[in-house]
């Protein structure tokens, strides 16, 4: 039931997005925003079927996605002429901070539970921080970034590295397979961040980078839906 429902909603939203791309920018933005909620629902589903130490963390990530979705809906509302930028930014930041906290908690709680070798989490977090800082610095060399943009980009890189290392360490097992879906979603999400870094989108005019960002983000959410469907 779940995989079919997820697939149907994904297809409907994708069609809405396509229609919006051709006909109405607000519809496109609305469809893209709703994809976040679909992703949140998928992550929530993954969480309920996951081992205990991952449940809280994945639920937190789902909540983070809800916040990003709210932010995107506020953006859409903004396209319709309302000033939502201040609130939107706050919601985005809250979502990203939640992502950071939950992503960091995952290896910590896994190690505390005795599932990882002692010291593994320390190494994972250190490498992820270093990698996140390095990649953000590289992005900054391409284009100057505001502190908030740096937070977004850094968080995307940091989280991708955290999940990537864990899914590698757990390759071949059920948890590893679950994490892999999240890793792919994060990789796509990070690529989406890179695209926004490379080009400054100038709304409300539709720029190609917005289309690429949307496509990557929609793919990321679809991967989560696919992951959730595979599990149930």
């Amino acid at each position: 039931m779940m995989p079919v429902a997820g697939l149907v909603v994904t297809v409907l939203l994708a069609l809405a997005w396509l229609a919006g791309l051709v006909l109405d920018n607000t519809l496109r933005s609305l469809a893209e925003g709703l994809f976040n909620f679909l992703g949140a629902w998928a992550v929530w589903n993954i969480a309920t079927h996951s081992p205990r130490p991952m449940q809280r963390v994945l639920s937190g990530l789902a909540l983070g996605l809800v916040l990003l979705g709210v932010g995107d809906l506020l953006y859409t509302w903004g396209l319709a002429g309302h000033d939502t930028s201040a609130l939107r930014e706050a919601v985005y930041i809250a979502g990203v901070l939640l992502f950071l906290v939950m992503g960091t908690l995952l290896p910590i709680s896994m190690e505390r539970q005795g599932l990882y070798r002692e010291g593994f989490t320390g190494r994972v977090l250190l490498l992820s921080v270093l990698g996140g800082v390095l990649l953000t610095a590289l992005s900054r060399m391409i284009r100057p970034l505001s502190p908030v943009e740096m937070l977004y980009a850094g968080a995307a890189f940091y989280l991708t590295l955290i999940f990537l290392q864990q899914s590698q360490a757990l390759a071949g097992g059920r948890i590893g397979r679950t994490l892999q879906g999240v890793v792919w979603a994060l990789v796509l999400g990070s690529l989406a961040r890179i695209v926004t870094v490379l080009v400054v989108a100038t709304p409300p005019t539709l720029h190609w980078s917005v289309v690429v960002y949307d496509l990557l983000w929609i793919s990321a959410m679809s991967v989560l839906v696919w992951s959730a469907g595979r599990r149930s």
Partner: protein
Amino acid sequence: MGDTGRGLLGLLSPTLLGQLLRELPRGETLAENVQGGLLTPEFVQRLRGEGFSGYALAQLKANLAWLAFYKGRLLEAWRQTDQGSSHGVAAYQATQGELAGGTLSLYRLSPEAIPPILALTGGILRAAALPAGSVVAADLFASLGQEGFTGALVLEDGSSGQGWYFSRGQVLFGAEIPGGFGAGRLHMAHTSAEAPPDLFTVLEQQEQQRQQERLEALWGAAQAVLREYMGRGAVPALERLRRTHTAQDPGTLGPSLRRWLETSLEPNAALMFDRLVKG
């Protein structure tokens, strides 16, 4: 049982052997026809501790069971069954299992008297089915005395029989040398030079081995569950698990591993563990 033989087990019917054991001298009677439940593990430990030598006769419904103690060690157990008889650890375990419903008698003998009796079920066969009529009893006893024979001599005459026990050539229990044997067949077994193993020790070793096997089965199941969930990460997780779960008793380790899998992974992991442990 090492180099020890099977004595006269293959020659005497369980009924006749039972009769011979019943007719063993009583020595000092410690208990007679008491409730079989008396032979609790604690009581057995006391017999071991005080270096008891003697034997126990247990009447289990229609069947007889016999336990031989030598200086606190349980060197033989023999038991009539509906199909025949059994001896050794299997006989002791079966007897223990049924004792509660039977009666028990316990007799103390001098330690020297035990090895010759043990020849009945664990000795080395010396002579089988000699026509008794052709043997001169006095000559046989004299020659056994001369060589310092230790073991058992049994005259089997149809369904009944008689036993003589020798220790270093001496006839034990004040038995008289018969004038002649008459009809029947004579069987002889001498006591093995190598003492049979203590059945208590054998049982303890078996129990230890069983525990070890159960522990290994538990860890094997835990490893399989971890591999299913953790893939490559199962090895370090198992290492930590082994460090935190050091119980050597399967009855404690099993539930605690199960609980860990349930809380650290998920209820399905515990179910998988159950399935694997059951095999």
